């Protein structure tokens, strides 16, 4: 595909790549960080069509992974499946999912004159820039994992996002494969409207239904007619088995039978991630054996149900960056017998500066079971107040420790964890990076 590029484009591309690579080298040798955004930003200044020129060179195609939760884990699983088949894959594995991050991932895999020699590119894409990058990327497949309320201060609202996605995806070539979550009404609706090939993924396992619809739910109204949906059951948040009593809109049939598949890691949300990646891999022609073997041997991406051993004590980091994700990580904690939990709440740009979402989380479930809860982060007092207001009596049921200093908070949390128990850490995104840095002594971004 590289030969399709005009000579003049190739020269500009080569120059842009060269400059970007020098920046990467410079940033790393000066130990300024892992250079996951800046090289892309600079190269794009020099050649604005960079994304398009680079993506054209990917041999078998670009795969987009979009959605509020689970992008990194799904991408890592799909990448591992493809690599196990011997494919070369480029991937924005640091989770930098805005335009400059995508560009930087491509640049990492190009040689000095801008030739990209990979079979697949797997790109985790921020929900808000999906409409902007689909046309230049011309992806082979698009995985739409879920749409939850996340970082609303940056994105506006769930309805608006799905409308924008539908509009742009509809303009892509008919052979584009779209893989939406059937259990998410908004995405099921999106899939049902598209002219492209659509393969749904979702659960058919009523034994995993929740007892009640949690409060942190966005979309229980029919995306087609606005009537409220009837749920036979809810798996998590607004994901479930639904029909509309007014217009007949109902969940689409998933391509894979979920009960026949093992899942990676812990938590029902990872079952969705598993099914999304498996559906995509099958569609790309990977045999079922390789897919199942990869699933069975899968290790966590950093901070996503990642297990570490620190000073002989087990630590599990469960990224908790929005109400749905946090309700699920709380479900993991409450299903364990471990009684020490550290919550770290930051309000930096990658976390979303609006932390009001913590009031949509059912922290009551965590507090009811007692134990020691340590809180830290930029918004430590907001988190502490949320936990305090989870208690129905003036006397506290928990040992609540408020510690502004993260290092000290981690040390205290480890001290409180008995040798045979696991410390669960529930951090927001930037907090997760900091926690890992403290625990492992290494920076990852």
């Amino acid at each position, binding site marked *: 595909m590289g030969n399709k590029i005009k000579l003049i484009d190739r020269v500009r591309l080569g120059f842009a790549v060269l400059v970007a690579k020098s920046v990467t080298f410079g940033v790393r040798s000066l130990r300024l960080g892992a250079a996951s955004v800046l090289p892309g930003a600079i190269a794009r200044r020099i050649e604005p069509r960079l994304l398009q020129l680079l993506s054209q060179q990917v041999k078998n195609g670009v795969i987009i992974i979009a959605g509020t939760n689970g992008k990194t884990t799904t991408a890592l699983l799909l990448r591992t499946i493809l690599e196990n088949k011997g494919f070369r894959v480029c991937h924005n594995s640091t989770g930098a999912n805005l335009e400059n991050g995508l560009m930087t991932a491509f640049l990492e895999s190009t040689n000095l004159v801008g030739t990209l020699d990979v079979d697949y590119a797997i790109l985790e894409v921020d929900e808000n820039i999906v409409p902007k990058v689909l046309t230049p990327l011309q992806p082979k497949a698009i995985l739409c994992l879920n749409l939850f309320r996340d970082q609303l201060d940056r994105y506006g609202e769930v*309805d608006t996002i799905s409308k924008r996605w539908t509009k742009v995806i509809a303009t892509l070539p008919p052979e584009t494969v779209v893989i939406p979550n059937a259990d998410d009404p908004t995405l099921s609706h999106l899939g049902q409207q598209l002219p492209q090939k659509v393969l749904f993924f979702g659960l058919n396992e009523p034994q995993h239904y929740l007892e009640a619809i949690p409060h942190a739910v966005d979309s229980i109204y029919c995306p087609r007619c606005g009537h409220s949906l009837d749920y036979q059951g809810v798996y998590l948040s607004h994901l479930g088995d639904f029909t509309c009593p007014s217009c007949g809109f109902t969940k689409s049939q998933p391509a894979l039978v979920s009960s026949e598949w093992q899942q990676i890691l812990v938590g029902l949300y990872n079952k969705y991630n598993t099914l999304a990646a498996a559906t995509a891999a099958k569609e790309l022609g990977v045999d079922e054996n390789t897919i199942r073997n990869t699933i069975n041997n899968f290790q966590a991406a950093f901070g996503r149900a990642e297990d570490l051993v620190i000073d002989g004590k087990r630590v599990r980091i469960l990224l908790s960056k929005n109400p749905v994700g946090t309700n699920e990580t709380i479900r993991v904690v409450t299903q364990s017998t471990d009684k020490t939990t550290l919550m770290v709440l930051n309000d930096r740009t990658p976390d979303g500066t*609006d932390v*009001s979402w913590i009031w949509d989380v059912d922290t009551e479930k965590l507090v009811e079971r007692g134990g020691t809860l340590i809180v830290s982060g930029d918004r430590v007092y907001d988190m502490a107040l949320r936990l305090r207001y989870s208690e129905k009596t003036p006397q506290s049921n928990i040992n609540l420790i408020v510690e502004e200093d993260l290092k000290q908070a981690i040390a205290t949390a480890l001290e409180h964890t008995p040798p045979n128990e696991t410390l669960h850490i529930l951090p927001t995104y930037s907090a997760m990076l900091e926690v890992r840095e403290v625990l492992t002594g290494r920076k990852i971004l």
Partner: protein
Amino acid sequence: MNLELTIGWLYPTLMSTYGDRGNVITIERRAQWRGYSVKVLPLDQNATADEIKSVDVIVGGGAQDRQQEIVMRDLQGAKAEAIREKIENGTPGVFTCGSPQLLGHYYEPGIGQRIEGLGILDLVSVHPGENTKRCIGNLVIEVTASRLAKDLEEMTGTKPYLVGFENHGGRTKLGKVEALGKVIYGLGNNGEDGTEGAFYQNAIATYSHGPLLPKNPFVADWLIQTALRLKYQQLITLQPLEDTLAMQARESMFKKLQVSPPKPTVLA
């Protein structure tokens, strides 16, 4: 006397976008911790006008534009009259983001038709269009609505500063209704005239979520006290609660925003 308090929560599933539930939880807990019996009554599509009339304090949150339309279609006739009657008769309430828009004359969304409001508060809200920036960020206001400011000052011994977070696309312009306060940090109603929120009878309207009440517990207590006075026709003194965490949360926000916290006032 066994005190009872019923909290009416406007459309909990349709209007609860930004942690607005926190306001309900704060009132509920602060009443529970003092030993009152508390009931939270969802005032949704299934609620009757009589149920609306039965509540002692009302909480309303924000909504996405589509949900706001569904609410307005439902909030007609006897139900609309019940809300109007409650507010006019002094039932206290806290209304955030979308719900003040719905209590005002109208709201014009970024795309689509104008949504008519109940016209109880003399204010209008307009979304200036998809490409206009949302008003997002930490918010500090000084309560200036005279009666409320006086009550809160008596309760706390300081000028009442409220700490919150705003996150709204719409801009609100006040008519004859009194503003809730003046902006000390942030944007408020429209980013232009320095006003934030509105105060009418005992209804507090604000763009401040975060939610508002956990970090401003004295406002929660004012709502509870006002509700009980109306219900039992006598002044009921609330026993103080341990609010160290809320005070630390406020201090840490004042420090972060470099806002000088309010000084204690010398009462005459």
